[in-house]
């Protein structure tokens, strides 16, 4: 599986529970002073940076292949 596919699946897995919680009145992301919104924001930030690292990893793998050839 390509890293792009893995990332879109990961993103959906993380977003889905949030949207389900968001529909109820006693909303998980709004509980305890909305602290879980901060957690969601940090998770997105982490995913974004990880996406970049994976892309860089892919480029380096290509370079390694070229050197071997």
């Amino acid at each position: 599986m390509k890293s792009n596919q893995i990332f879109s699946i990961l993103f959906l897995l993380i977003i889905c529970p949030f949207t389900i919680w968001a529909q109820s009145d006693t909303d998980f992301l709004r509980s305890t002073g909305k602290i879980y919104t901060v957690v969601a924001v940090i998770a997105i930030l982490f995913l974004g940076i990880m996406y970049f690292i994976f892309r860089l990893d892919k480029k380096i793998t290509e370079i390694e292949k070229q050197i071997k050839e």
Partner: protein
Amino acid sequence: MNIKKSWWKWLCIPLGLYVLLVGMLVPLKPGITSIDNFNATAGQPFSVHVKGYNSNFDIAENLKAFLRLDSSFLIQHALIKVNGPTDLQLQFDIPNFLPTSEDYATGTLILDNEVDGPSILPAVIRLEQANINVQDGNNLWSKTSLNLASVEKGFKFPHRNILNETIRNTFFHVAIWFAMFFLLILSLINSIQYLRLRSFEKDINASSYAEVAILFGLIGIATGSVWAKYTWGAFWISDVKLNMSAVALLIYVAYLILRASIQDIDSRARLSAAYNIFAFVAMIPLIFVIPRMTDSLHPGNGGNPALGGEDLDNRLRMVFYPAIILWSIIGYWLSNLNIRVKKITEQLISKK
């Protein structure tokens, strides 16, 4: 890794731990989360249930509650019943007349005690009156004066209504935008240097900084969207700052498309350097000027400078500024890795 040369990379570790630990663990100041009654009528008792946040109603001895009108007239509570540390039952005896010639007024709820200090829930209670008598209203409402306890206890972040704990997003969402500007400035400098020196290295630098800056911009939009959903109520609203930053980001995405669409290395470098300067110049009014000329939900727009006012107090600044440095360093580091990968790829191609 040579520590003397790469000290700024090691700086990420203490800075990151500081931002995460202090940013997440420092408690908020006490505040009011919700009330259950928003409508009061003149001449009748108004009883309301108050939910506090981080409050100590049970420890406090000198509890006071005020109902304050926009015209700064106020009355004090008639009854207070403490149900728990964050649970309070209040009753106000609303006078027969309001100090206004309208048939309604808007009231702000103020709680005060010697442990928590004042907590305010602004403009939430609607007071109505059947008969208007401004003279009597003025007399009835001007009997109490507002003496608030001044408490400065411990290192705490401000409690803002609606925002609550999400004020901590300042260290992530806002700081990532600042890091984006830092990277875009580096990209701009490299583009100008390319046009002056025609050195291919500068072109690689400029594009690498711009790529990471766009990644940070996308993270900024995504995190802002989640933040907006749980404070303003929707993932995307028609706010100037949101739309303009989306436009600015699109202009930069066009920079990447422009680079990808030109095969010839020299003309690609020259055109994209010129376009990068245009994109930066276009971004300044889009993000910094236009949102300040109209009203925006973002703090600091519609008049005030972004770093002033009560929304960013000195306690928040002590984490916010290190957070900007942290994300800028991480962005610089990521773009540096990107630059090195691109240079090695170029060397390999030219050797073949």
